[in-house]
């Protein structure tokens, strides 16, 4: 299988080089045979990388421990689902996975993009092939998963216990899908720049790609939070670790892009900015990977250090220079069609939303890189941890939450005082009343109080929008209120789906605010002994230690400590079990340090989080950490709401309007200016179809 895998990779290398060449030549000359070849090369590239992927998967499933990668990340007694997830659990496999998924996306982009965008496809193909080429080169020359060992071990080392969790089966692929799919909008941006077709056409072509990739990123990040919460055992879900930050950066710039793109579609403004944002998102996804793989910053998530970091650094520099050069060449074509007419307009509010999103991205990047900057400037290392990030980012985040409510209600172009009064009277009142109530109740945390007040304000703005829209349909068409609401959403999917996404974001903020009231304690308990812990909601939990039992499971010896939990208000809560797991290989030999499995009782108000820290003097007397985490369940629910909103936005049928398509058509601008499009570009439009 390793021969097949290596052969497939070498073939992929040749195909990718060919794809880059014919794609760029095809785009430049407009020759149909070259364009056709570029398209077919993309499909072939996908095919050979699938073969490479199948070869690695087969080696993993067959326990071919002569393959270094298989021996390093799996063992005979590893459950099959984790054997499969080991595909992307290590450096070399994850790089192959990246190239493979990107080639699938590249092929999909060629396949599903409507014919009216055919003029962009040769350059899209060339760009995606160039990026696949990079990953194939890194896989072949720096981190090859098909490298064989000079001997065959009896058993493999096994997968890190912390990766043996259902969250880790789905979290990395989701995050990768998010990272990787950003390549497609970026490739369209490059194509639009190369073809000098900087109307809104390319934006229509990538509309769904951007939403899909943003959703993948969101789900991937949230699943990562869930995994950290249930598996790492520290009782939280976000630690501002450099690798977490690296995944958050492209999410922020993509969010900014999803907003600013509306201004270009509606008003023809921010053309340069949109190109910069989508390029920045892609570059940040590569930068995040560079951070994870290079070892320049210390992180618990980092892969083993290797030469891969240098490859990524060189690629990153090349990309930055290439994009900057292309952008510089096309600057004259990126002039706005219209000017901002008022500071009190939706355009202005979206601009400030962009400022804050990119501002948060900058502050996170600044904080992540500050240890390096400090070392360069002062020669002294510093640590930039959660206290810094919370202090700097919470106020900016709250500003952003406020704009989430403001933006959608302000009129395009220019809002009148009457418009503002009509739109904001109720939501602002609701927010102020909430703030007053929280102050009167002596709410314990300032930022949490502000977050809750703003959350009420934003939800009020959204409810008002739904109520007014449905009310208007009810009056105009005589539909009952439920039908009116359903049709309102169904016929304006992008707008109302977007509002539902905003509700999801608000839920996230409320859940984050809850963590300000996290309560925890440690206790050592003999069997039958109890301890008490007061909840932030006022009631008291009694934790009674039941004992510790040990047993053998699939690939581990488990020491399970059980706690009975009762509440002074709600009676018995239940039994919670936390485990210490000593993983062993198929010969019963310990493979890793013992890991901890937290026991979690999840509720709408709070989670009871129990961690068995170990035993006193090898007896059943157990040391526990008990944590009460308010509102954590709402983080996961917020993600569900957000995805539901995203699906509504993506639901087929909500494409660009005819008027908007007409504006994007070639020749539309030429009619006005009297300068017809060059003949070659028109030829590409007609000649590029398969």
């Amino acid at each position: 299988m390793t021969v097949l895998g290596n052969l497939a990779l070498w073939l992929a290398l040749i195909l990718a080089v060919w794809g880059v060449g014919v794609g760029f030549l095809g785009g430049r000359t407009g020759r149909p045979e070259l364009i056709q070849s570029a398209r077919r090369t993309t499909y072939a590239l996908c095919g050979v990388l699938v073969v490479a992927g199948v070869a690695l998967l087969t080696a993993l499933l067959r326990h071919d421990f002569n393959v270094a990668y298989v021996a390093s990340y799996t063992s005979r007694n590893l459950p099959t689902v984790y054997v499969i997830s080991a595909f992307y659990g290590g450096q070399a496999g994850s790089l192959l996975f990246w190239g493979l998924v990107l080639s699938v996306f590249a092929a999909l982009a060629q396949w599903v993009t409507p014919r009216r965008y055919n003029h962009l496809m040769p350059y899209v193909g060339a760009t995606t092939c160039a990026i696949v080429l990079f990953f194939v080169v890194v896989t072949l020359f720096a981190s090859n998963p098909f490298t064989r060992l000079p001997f065959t071990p009896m058993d493999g080392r096994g997968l890190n216990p912390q990766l043996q969790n259902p969250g880790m089966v789905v979290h990395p692929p989701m995050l990768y899908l998010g990272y990787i799919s950003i390549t497609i909008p970026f490739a369209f941006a490059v194509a639009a720049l190369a073809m000098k077709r900087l109307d809104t056409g390319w934006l229509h072509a990538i509309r769904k790609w951007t939403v899909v990739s943003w959703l993948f990123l969101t789900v991937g990040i949230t699943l990562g939070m869930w995994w950290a919460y249930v598996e790492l055992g520290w009782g939280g879900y976000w630690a501002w670790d450099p690798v977490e930050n690296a995944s958050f950066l492209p999410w922020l710039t993509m969010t900014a892009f999803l907003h600013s793109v509306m201004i270009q579609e509606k008003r023809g403004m921010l053309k340069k900015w949109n190109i910069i944002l989508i390029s920045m998102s892609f570059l940040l996804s590569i930068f995040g990977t560079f951070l994870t793989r290079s070892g320049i910053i210390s992180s618990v998530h980092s892969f083993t250090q290797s030469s891969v970091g240098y490859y990524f650094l060189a690629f990153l520099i090349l990309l930055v220079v290439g994009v900057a050069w292309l952008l510089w060449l096309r600057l004259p074509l990126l002039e706005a069609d219209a000017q901002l007419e008022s500071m009190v307009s939706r355009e202005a509010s979206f601009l400030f939303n962009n400022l804050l999103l990119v501002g948060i991205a900058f502050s996170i990047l600044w904080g992540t890189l500050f240890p390096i900057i400090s070392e360069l400037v002062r020669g002294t290392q510093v640590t930039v941890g959660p206290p810094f990030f919370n202090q700097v980012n919470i106020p900016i985040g709250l500003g952003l939450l406020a704009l989430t409510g403001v933006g959608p209600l302000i009129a395009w172009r220019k809002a009148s005082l009457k418009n503002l009064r009509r739109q904001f009277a109720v939501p602002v009142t609701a927010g102020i009343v909430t703030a007053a109530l929280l102050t009167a109740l002596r709410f314990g945390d300032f930022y949490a109080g502000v977050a809750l007040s703003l959350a009420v304000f934003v939800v009020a703005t959204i409810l008002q929008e739904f109520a007014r829209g449905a009310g208007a349909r009810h009056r105009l068409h005589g539909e009952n209120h439920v039908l009116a609401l359903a049709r309102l959403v169904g016929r304006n999917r992008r707008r109302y789906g977007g509002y539902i996404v905003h509700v999801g974001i608000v839920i996230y903020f409320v859940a984050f605010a809850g963590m300000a009231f996290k309560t925890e304690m440690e206790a050592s308990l003999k069997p039958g002994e109890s301890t008490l812990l007061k909840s932030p909601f006022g009631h008291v939990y009694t934790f009674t230690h039941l004992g510790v039992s040990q047993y053998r499971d699939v690939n581990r010896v488990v020491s399970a400590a059980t706690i009975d939990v009762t509440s002074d208000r709600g009676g018995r809560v239940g039994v919670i079990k936390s485990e210490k797991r000593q993983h062993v290989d198929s010969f019963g030999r310990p493979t890793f340090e013992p890991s901890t499995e937290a026991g979690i009782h999840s509720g709408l108000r709070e989670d009871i989080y129990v961690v068995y820290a170990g035993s006193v003097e090898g007896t059943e007397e157990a040391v526990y950490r008990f944590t009460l985490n308010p509102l954590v369940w709402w983080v996961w629910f917020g993600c569900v709401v957000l995805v539901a909103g995203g699906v509504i936005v993506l639901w087929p049928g909500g494409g660009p309007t005819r008027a908007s398509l007409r504006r994007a058509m070639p020749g539309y601008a030429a009619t006005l200016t009297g300068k017809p499009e060059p003949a070659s570009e028109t030829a590409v439009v007609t000649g590029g179809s398969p």
Partner: protein
Amino acid sequence: MIYPRDTRITRRAMLGAGLAALFPGVARSQQPEQAPNESGQAPSAPLPRPDMAGRPRSRVTDYENDPFVVGIESELRCTCGCNLSVYTCRTTDFTCQTSPAMHQHVIALMEQGKTGEEILQEFVAQYGETVLMAPPKRGFNIAAYVVPGVVIIAVGGALSWVLARRARLMASQAAAASNDLGDVPGLSSEEAARLKAELERLGV
């Protein structure tokens, strides 16, 4: 000898449920409070395989939950390379030997009567600034805290200034255009301004 998987847990769960019913908790504080055992002398049976239950632990004392100790440890980074605070590491990574040692050091310094700031300085003197979870707000480190806010405010200010200027320009053009094109029926002043701007751009 490893016990079969289910039996012991089930028996203990039943016993524990009965015990929990006998000892309803009374809220006093968040400090750990151990209720008396049913027999008064709880037997803690030895584990069949203590080597499989992680690193041996010592009993929790009042210091482990002392808000002062927890506060100090939350500001100190464990030097084992985990990037976590001493408090988070010692209550999460139970294989780490470093954070328990740093915890004992904090307690020792506290018992010497040192203040929180003095304890932090003691650690900084030993390990350097990198032992703090966030850079201290002095000297060059101030840049870490100030730069993001300054950049956002500066860019926001510049953006506001440019946008306000453009909006004013548009308004004045609208006013002028409404004079020039005032006789066009149904044309608002803004539309007149846009029309005029387009005509000028096209050189008409």
